[in-house]
């Protein structure tokens, strides 16, 4: 007696997947190409300007979440930042919070380049024309050094006063080196304060409710993080391919890797298209997509291998088609459950969780697709190639044997 089950896909279905691959492969290739093309296009689109909406993780700079007490236009915020000396700032609304914006700008130090001249002028005016030997500050540094004329006594408080007078938010000034060196170390960590002052000055006192989070990354660290991200993606792909080679054989490897690259590039494309923030968390999401999209491919490949052993009378493309059909329901179901969960995160989550879920949403869809329509055709193609190379020596041998 046979049993009935609740089924979305009937077990006796037989779709012809293998026969339809060519147009799908072509459209996939087109999509991947489009994704890659979007990157340079984005750089020239007004309002975008970067290949991807890189978070400060990758390009250095400062990112602040600023909550306002009232509704403010992003353009007005940008202008207020500009007039406060923060050049090239970007303002991204955070729709999940009220009157909340992500403000991003290249500066990481409380000392703006345009303040340096004012500081130097301040010393000349207050302490005498030749009082300042040198004002040392490195771009993006959180410290500056003031070297004053030797042979006269100066106090840290005098230095602090002059710096403050020039509009620099100073948190501490201390003597550096020997007393007679007249050198002072200035610690600059007042970036939030300066941003708040700049915004309040233009948008009206009390416009800023709070700055609940601040992140800043030096340019060099940003480059390191980006390189690490790329290395980790390559390493993950390499290791997964290695595992597939060990567990299956060489014919199965390339198909999985192409599928995997396809998935990763399309997720990248989705980020290029929507211009959602691309951060370290996105790299993590892409890595997860890579690991997860392999699941479906493995389910299909496992079945192909099993069937190839059983159905010796059938041709390989046919075996692949049967296997894809047999595993279709589980491929779809497993992806569906993960899709539900990540969709819920995308809709109701916030911040990092949301971006992560978006990447997973795209990744699960393209991953399921690629395991059927990309990994399998490549497997068939490679199988044929390997059969050809195996046949050739055999025919040679048969022709030369009866001598």
């Amino acid at each position: 007696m046979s049993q009935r089950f609740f089924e979305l896909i009937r077990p006796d279905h037989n779709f012809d997947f293998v026969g339809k691959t060519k147009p799908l492969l072509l459209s996939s290739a087109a999509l991947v190409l489009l994704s890659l093309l979007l990157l340079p296009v984005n750089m020239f689109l007004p309002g975008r300007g970067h290949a991807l909406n890189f978070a400060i993780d990758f390009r250095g700079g400062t990112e602040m979440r600023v909550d306002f007490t009232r509704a403010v236009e992003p353009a007005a915020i940008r202008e207020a930042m500009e007039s406060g000396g923060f050049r090239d700032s970007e303002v991204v609304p955070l729709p999940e919070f009220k009157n909340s914006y992500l403000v991003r700008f290249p500066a990481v130090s409380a000392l703006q380049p345009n303040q340096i001249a004012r500081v130097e002028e301040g010393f000349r005016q207050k302490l005498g024309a030749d009082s300042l030997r040198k004002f040392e500050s490195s771009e993006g540094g959180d410290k500056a050094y003031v070297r004053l004329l030797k042979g006269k006594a100066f106090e840290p408080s005098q230095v602090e006063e002059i710096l403050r007078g020039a509009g620099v938010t100073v948190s501490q000034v201390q003597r550096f080196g020997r007393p007679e060196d007249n050198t002072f170390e200035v610690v600059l960590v007042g970036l939030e304060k300066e941003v708040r002052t700049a915004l309040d000055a233009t948008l009206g006192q009390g416009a800023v409710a709070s700055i609940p989070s601040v992140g800043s990354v030096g340019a060099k660290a940003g480059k390191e993080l980006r390189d690490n991200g790329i290395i980790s993606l390559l390493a993950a792909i390499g290791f997964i391919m290695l595992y597939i080679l060990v567990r299956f054989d060489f014919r199965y490897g390339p198909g999985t890797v192409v599928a995997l690259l396809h998935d990763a590039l399309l997720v990248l494309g989705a980020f290029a298209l929507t211009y959602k923030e691309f951060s370290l968390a996105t790299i993590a999401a892409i890595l997860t997509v890579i690991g997860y999209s392999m699941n479906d491919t493995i389910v299909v490949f496992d079945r192909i291998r099993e069937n190839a052993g059983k159905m010796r009378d059938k041709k390989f493309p046919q075996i692949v088609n049967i296997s894809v059909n047999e595993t279709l329901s589980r491929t779809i179901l497993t992806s569906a459950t993960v899709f539900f969960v990540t969709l819920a995160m995308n809709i109701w989550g916030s911040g990092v969780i949301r971006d992560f879920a978006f990447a997973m949403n795209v990744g699960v869809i393209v991953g399921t697709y690629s395991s059927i329509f990309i990994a399998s055709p490549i497997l068939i193609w490679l199988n044929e190639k390997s059969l050809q190379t195996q046949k050739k020596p055999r025919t040679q041998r048969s022709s030369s044997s009866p001598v």
Partner: protein
Amino acid sequence: MERSFYYRVTAYSFITLLSVMILLPSVADWTHTAHRLPEWYTKMFSRKIALGLDLQGGLHLVYEVQVDKAVSDKADRLAAQIEEKLAKDRKVKGAHVSREGDGAESRLRVTFQNKADARKLDRAFEREFAKYLTRESDNGQTGETVFKMDADYVDELRGYAVSQGVETIKNRVDKLGVAEPIVQRKQNDIVVELAGLSQADFQRVKTMIGKTAQLEFKMVDDGAEYMQRLSAYAESKKTQYPGLEVGFDYWQQKDNGQQHTDVYLKSKDKSVMERFLKDLPSELAVPNDHQILFEQISRDEDDDKTPDKPWRSYYLHRRAELTGEYLTDAEMNFDQTTNRPEVGITFDSEGASLFEKASGANIGRKMAIILDEKISSAPTIEGRIGGGRARITMGGYSDKVQQEAKDLVAVLKAGALPAPLRKTFETQVGASLGPEAVSKARTSMVIGTLAVVIFMLIYYRASGIIADVAMVFNVIYLLSIMALIQATLTLPGIAAVVLTVGMAVDANIIFYERIREELRGGKTPRQAVENGFGRALWTVVDAHVTNLVAGVVLYSYGTGPIRGFAVSLIAGIVCNLFTSVWLSRVMFDYMVLRNKKRATMSI
């Protein structure tokens, strides 16, 4: 039913019970019900899941030690020293030393106004700097000599710069009074994580950590009448300041046998003493020309049972005899006769004369070595020390004493040549952000989980229940593993936990579909379960391994919250494998064995 079935049920029940017990303190923490747990319990299961900075608010800072700048700085110092020495010892007028190049490529070019003076820069003169510099070229005609930094010394300097940076930052972070601060070295970077700080403190903390270290030498005013009065007052207030003690110190002057006595305050908890001093009545206030600082006393060598080292106070003259700028170097040596470790300090010529004066005037007294207001050591001056070289002998031979000597060297070097730190990475999260994000994450988690649970129930009926139960166990195991390894739960980590929920039923689906296939092929439920689990096992393992690879790669390259994500993901994958392959199997066996006669099963 079979015997192995009962064994398995017992084993899994035990594992589950243990997991719940491990997890309980963490859950109690999150729900603010920790006080309801008995003390023995929290002691026994003390491991908890820590909340990441993005969840509880706090400051994450990464400082880069600019090792090349440290080398350049030292080269500048050496240039000044050579100029000074040529002028003083060799009476050369108008010698000029300039640095060219940076870092390890630094070169010192010595030029003379009067070419004939070049002879005075002879081998004997050079020997003094042999450790730091090697002569690269000299030109007899122009009188120019070029030195380059010694390669070994550059390596040493770089190594010291980083450990100095760590030492300096640790020292400051300890002063903040933040619970469980983290200061970690990662190659040339120093990672600082401070949780639970209020937003108002961020700026103060960053200022404190960012400034350059200050090394000072100050004299201890032993036997002062003020300390007698203060200790008497402390004795009377002991009940108000639990843990506050008064200690006595005796030592004998080596040259004439004169006795020195001193009283001091002592406590395991430094903050008790600080509070005591803050609350002092005005007639007992510390005199303006003095100050009280603390030193953490090292314990006797064999007393390792009590890990917390007590603190003691020193009553100091406020005026510093010397500061770090007069030091040129410090190193650890071993005394040639006793073989005890000792710390050697070298002063520049100005420092040498200051130190000679200070030591001569204070023979028999103690001199405190202070880095950033914390006393590192307070050795006794045994005699007038001239020549710009001082030795601090350590009180023992053990590894611990050697370590102390090394630490002291790091402190002294930090003062002599501050490690240039540069902040490269910063994240600060207000304390209110975490709960906001967590509540949103919770909503999405509940909805996502419910969707999966209902879907499995509809699609697989009774077997769906098994998958759902396994999923719940999965989350329990996952969290308890995280508690066990004291992992940090971050916002991306929560995403990983939610993802685990989605993936938890995946393996079940793969098994179930296989079982259905077997049933369709006419197998009995028992055979179908047997075959289904057996044949799909490798598929499930393969799928998990690829996920694991991604997780491990993520862990090894990621930082901060991303690492938290990787940890949750890896633990989730391992638990997934366990619950789907073994735990669900037990439940299946129960379902099948109970209805042996039925030809169908609910799947």
